[in-house]
């Protein structure tokens, strides 16, 4: 049988429809599509795809179950390695991970591993109602700081081994970036809630409204009887460009803009949380977070949304799929452009004019790519005399974050690097005995799956440590 050279297309909402709603963009495979896509897998002996997965999911094995129509079997196979399959199937950059190693990919399109993972997880969530069997307790207690992807993964892996795990979350809902950052249309919150419920069924306790470093310190966690602590507190303070006008009304960090819309549900008419809607919106930056912010702005009713990025499309760090989706929905990519000032309204006659201090435009310069820098990326250089004004009402700065100091400042002996990231060894162990860390708190802003990988590595190290002591 000849192999279909192309992946089965993912059914999606039409761009002109989805640009105005917050429902999920990708609709997921049907059973028939999934089986048919699974049949494209060559079941290679050396399993190159597995090496491309930060949590080493047994990919050919789970795909084999799909081929046989045993979707629950496939789910159980994935669960051996991943605590959040429905999440990963949606937000992982598979094109640079598992799928980039797929043998089929040499000649054709690789197997749609991510789409299959998502299908399996969704099938399980829809069709299987019984809870996983609670493991036999082993009597050891571990505290996890932060309920984002690294924390949940670490908690899940330890709970499966019988550990008594408590996760401390600063916000009022568990999920970290999965609930405050990634928008509903890319990752529905019910899916995150379902994954969290699965962990709870395994015995994981989740304590919301506890800020480690404030409400409790790491040292107090040990006093409370925890034998090891995993810190997965995530990325921290949003960065700004330090250009004039960033304090005007209508300028947000991407974190704030997305948190208002996602976690605080400002996109809903009945929400108590305000957000600037409509008008013209410029999102500064080119990462996945910038794409999320731009597409959120569209759905909130903006008449025009720009991505302003200082390099070209080739260097744009966001996932290709997200960029394509954004383009299809009508986001205007202003590439090789950089803001130098944000301008606001000021009525010279009336200092009490309510319009005073709101953003009216952003002054930008055009850029060209010069010599490659030490990392090999071509450095953008300003084209002299290229200044122009972009008329906007809202500016969203999406240019990264720097680590949160709360835990570092309150934990003696916890070493951090020059950027403020917690220093760990290859097992996730910090400079403090029994304290492990992973995810953005260590690496700075990175992907959900790399954070999950770190959570999994640390869980294994914590298990080794506590079993041998």
């Amino acid at each position, binding site marked *: 049988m000849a192999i279909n050279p192309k992946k089965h297309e993912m059914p999606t909402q039409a761009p002109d429809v989805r640009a105005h709603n917050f429902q999920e963009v990708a609709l997921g495979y049907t059973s028939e599509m999934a089986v048919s896509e699974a049949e494209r897998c060559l079941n290679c002996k050396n399993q190159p795809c597995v090496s491309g997965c930060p949590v080493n999911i047994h990919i050919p094995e789970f795909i084999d179950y799909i081929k046989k129509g045993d979707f629950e079997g496939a789910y159980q196979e994935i669960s051996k390695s991943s605590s959040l399959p429905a999440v990963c199937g949606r937000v992982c950059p598979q094109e640079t991970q598992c799928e980039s190693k797929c043998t089929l990919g040499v000649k054709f399109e690789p197997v749609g591993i991510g789409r299959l993972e998502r299908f399996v997880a969704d099938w399980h969530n829809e069709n299987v109602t019984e809870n996983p069997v609670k493991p036999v307790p082993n009597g050891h207690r571990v505290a996890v700081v932060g309920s984002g992807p690294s924390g949940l993964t670490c908690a899940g892996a330890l709970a499966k081994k019988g550990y008594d795990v408590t996760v401390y979350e600063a916000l009022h809902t568990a999920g970290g970036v999965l609930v405050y950052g990634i928008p509903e249309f890319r990752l529905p919150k019910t899916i995150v809630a379902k994954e969290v419920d699965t962990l709870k069924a395994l015995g994981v306790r989740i304590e919301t409204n506890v800020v480690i470093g404030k409400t409790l310190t790491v040292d107090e966690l040990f006093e409370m009887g925890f034998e090891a602590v995993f810190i997965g507190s995530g990325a921290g303070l949003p960065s700004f460009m330090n250009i004039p006008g960033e304090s005007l009304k209508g300028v947000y960090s991407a974190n704030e803009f997305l948190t208002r819309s996602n976690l605080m549900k400002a996109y809903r008419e009945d929400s108590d949380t305000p957000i600037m809607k409509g008008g013209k919106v410029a999102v500064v930056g080119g990462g996945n977070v910038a794409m999320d912010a731009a597409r959120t702005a569209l759905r909130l009713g903006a008449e025009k949304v720009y991505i302003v990025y200082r390099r070209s499309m080739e260097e744009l760090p966001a996932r290709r799929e997200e960029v394509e989706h954004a383009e299809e929905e009508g986001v205007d990519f202003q590439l090789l452009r950089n803001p130098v000032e944000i301008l606001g309204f000021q009525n010279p006659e009336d200092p009490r004019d309510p319009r005073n201090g709101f953003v009216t435009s952003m002054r930008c310069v055009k850029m060209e790519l010069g010599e490659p820098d030490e990392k090999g990326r071509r450095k953008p250089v300003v084209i002299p005399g290229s200044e122009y004004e972009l008329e906007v009402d809202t500016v969203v700065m999406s240019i990264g974050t720097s680590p*949160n100091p709360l835990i570092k400042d309150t934990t003696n002996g916890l070493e951090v690097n020059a950027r403020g990231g917690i220093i760990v060894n290859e097992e996730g162990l910090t400079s403090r005995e029994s304290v492990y860390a992973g995810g953005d708190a260590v690496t700075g802003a990175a992907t959900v799956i790399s954070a999950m990988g770190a959570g999994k590595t640390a869980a294994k190290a914590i298990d080794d440590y506590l079993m041998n002591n």
Partner: protein
Amino acid sequence: MYKIVRKKSLNKTVTQMEIEAPLVARKGKPGQFIILRVDSEGERIPLTIAGTNPKEGTVKIIFQVVGGTTTKLNNKNEGEFIEDFVGPLGRATHTEGIQKVCIVGGGVGCAIAMPVAEEFHRLGASVTSIVGFRDENLVILEDEFKACSDKLIIMTDDGSYGRHGNVTVPLKEMLEAGEQFDMIITIGPLIMMKFVTLTAQPFGVPVTASMNPIMIDGTGMCGGCRLTLHRDGERITKFACVDGPEFNAYEIDFDEAMSRGRMYADFERHSYEETCNLFKKA
């Protein structure tokens, strides 16, 4: 869920509640704040800690009914619960080495100023308190201030209680009379704090202002609470939630903070009216 253990009305629009939150009560210090949500659909609002009772495990908050959320909160009764309550957030008031302090509070800001004054009093410092209100009916916490102040001056805008005028009037008189303070701490409306700072400036007295900007998470994640400090000719961006809420008042860009504070003025007015209508109907 967090229980409202006690509720007391301080005046027409200002309410005091004691909330059961043992972890926060154990750690909370004057100058720090909490964030709460009234119900599962509510917004997150920051409120400064007005006192703690670690033994009982309760935290005192004082709030003015100004918008939708504070209206909903005010409609909760003793024994009822609120959805979320997290803290203590921000840094505690810096007290070290201060032997003579002047606390200048305005309006509901006095609710925040009072525990700060109490803390200095407890530490043995000499405390002068100047508190200002619009009129007689809005005066709050008079007895509390009396108990912890070596000198208390109450001002009202219309002269209906205490002295007539702004809080800057007696402050200026005292400074002109040669009164020496190690620190002036001002807590209240931005415009008042700005003028307290301008009043103190010629006398070279250090001034600390407690900022209460718009916030969401309160842990340094969203950056909504950012404000600008001017230091040595440079603009420095700070986050009130993790770097503050107290800052060197001479460095704060008060005009910018006032402008940012009005970002959602329309939305808030609308939400307040809607919530009031809901409660009227009910």
